């Protein structure tokens, strides 16, 4: 037989485990995705287009992408800084802080949303002094960005940290020994090696921010055309049993997410090849 489905292997259980995996994924993932595809295919093109190009939808896309992008950029800058401190320095409490980074993964999004709103509301502990300075955070796009900074942060730190920890310090020694300054060593030796993981972290945070709902809805204020993110607009459509409108928005968001996922995979292949 020329064509081989699977390479020869003496381990048992391939048929059982693969069969179970495929059935489970089929029922839990493919079937629901088929429903979305079917629902999208039942719409005519003008219907679809008008659903995603209404004023309200376009404003929500612009808000979601804008805030997600800004939050992901802030995450990338501070994520690199935090990853550097955690992997290159020792200070009291470093291990506890290291464990704390994953808090946004473990804390339910609705809970972080409620807590952030309490902190940044006009009568909140940080919201009040900021309001006195004339900066309104809660119920504005700034609030949305802050919620996204919280949920996106671990993605950047956790992608960059292992790379920083495993860098060969001999390379830095060599650069320093050949007369490079600290800054040159960082910008010309370390940074290029960290860049792929930094980009991956950025994309992961950006993708997560685009779909974020729980932590954003409390602090956003949810005013149509102003602080209404796309996920919330989808919920509004669903609550009005407007499945077609929800389908159109969801398909648009899904296609964008897939493109991002593809980018992540390409970035990872690229960085893998570069580091070898």
């Amino acid at each position: 037989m020329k064509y081989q489905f699977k390479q020869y292997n003496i381990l048992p259980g391939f048929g059982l485990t693969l069969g179970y995996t495929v059935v489970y994924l089929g029922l839990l993932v493919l079937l629901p995705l088929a429903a979305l595809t079917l629902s999208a295919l039942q719409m005519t093109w003008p219907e679809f287009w008008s659903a995603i190009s209404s004023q309200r939808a376009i404003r929500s896309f612009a808000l979601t992408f804008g805030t997600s992008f800004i939050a992901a950029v802030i995450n990338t800058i501070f994520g690199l800084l935090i990853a550097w401190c955690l992997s290159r320095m020792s200070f009291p409490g470093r291990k506890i802080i290291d464990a704390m980074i994953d808090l946004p993964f473990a804390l339910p999004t609705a809970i972080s949303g409620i807590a952030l709103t309490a902190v940044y509301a006009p009568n909140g502990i940080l919201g009040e002094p900021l309001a006195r300075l004339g900066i309104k955070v809660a119920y504005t796009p700034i609030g949305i960005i802050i919620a996204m900074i919280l949920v996106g942060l671990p993605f950047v730190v956790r992608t960059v940290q292992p790379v920083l920890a495993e860098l060969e310090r001999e390379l830095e020694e060599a650069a320093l020994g050949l007369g490079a300054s600290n800054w040159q060593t960082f910008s010309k030796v370390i940074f290029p090696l960290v860049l792929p993981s930094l980009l991956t972290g950025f994309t992961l945070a950006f993708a997560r921010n685009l779909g974020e709902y729980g932590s954003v809805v409390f602090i956003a204020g949810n005013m149509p055309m102003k602080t209404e993110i796309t996920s919330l607009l989808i919920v509004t459509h669903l609550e009005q049993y407007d499945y077609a409108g929800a389908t159109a928005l969801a398909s648009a968001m899904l296609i964008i997410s897939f493109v991002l996922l593809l980018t992540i995979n390409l970035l990872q292949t690229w960085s893998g090849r570069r580091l070898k």
Partner: protein
Amino acid sequence: MLFFVQNKYNKGLMPPAWLNWTLVVISLTFLAVFLLLPLVIIFTEAFRQGMTLWWQSISEPEALHALKLTLLTAAVAVPANTIFGLAAAWCLAKFRFFGRNIIITLIDLPFAVSPIIAGMLFVLLFGARGYLRGITDSLDLQIIFAVPGIILATMFITFPFVARELTGLMTQQGSQAEQAALSLGASGWQTFWHITLPDIKWGLLYGIILCNARAMGEFGAVSVVSGHIRGKTNTLPLHAEILYNEYNFSAAFAVASLLAFLALVTLVIKSIAERRKKR
């Protein structure tokens, strides 16, 4: 000195002390404002009006029902996804076959899909005009705005955790040990129980604990399929949301403090599992 910042290694790039200091202070301030402060606020708000009110808020019937539903959801979703994770990791890590990458991509999918869209997929299947409504109606089964929908949506959101963690770990470990056991006459199950499982147990715990945290805390997907029926389809996060929207802040934060406590326990177990895994 109260506060020590040093280079961890005495080799490679060693920034001067003042720079290290500045970087650490900026990082810690950032983390304090964005991570620590919200966490502290949850507990101070929850206990601000005393232990009695806190206890009342979490022991009233609706809160207890939400707690039960949350525990039930996790009790179904976590074991189901653990068994799936073990099966998926076994075939993905130990074998090379056609379509392997497609399965890996499908497993990554829930991380790329917004929870709202995840919930919506099940509404399209089982909702008012759902495609499978005929089947569920003939079985007299309600899925959307009922407990099964909540469990399904949670399973969708949480199935990658164990599978991803174990696939990575088992690929790394290879299968020489299993091959040796099999060639010495062990059966397939014996090999799994005595060779594979002891090697992956900390990774398994790590996956399960993250899966559990997400299952108990999922908000977006569950909120779409639940319908927020009090005393019926309310999980703890949804209950906290309802209380918050009713301006019943101390009760909302009391419920939130339960979930925040769960998150802290998760972090502790997670870092233990991480450290053991590395060994």
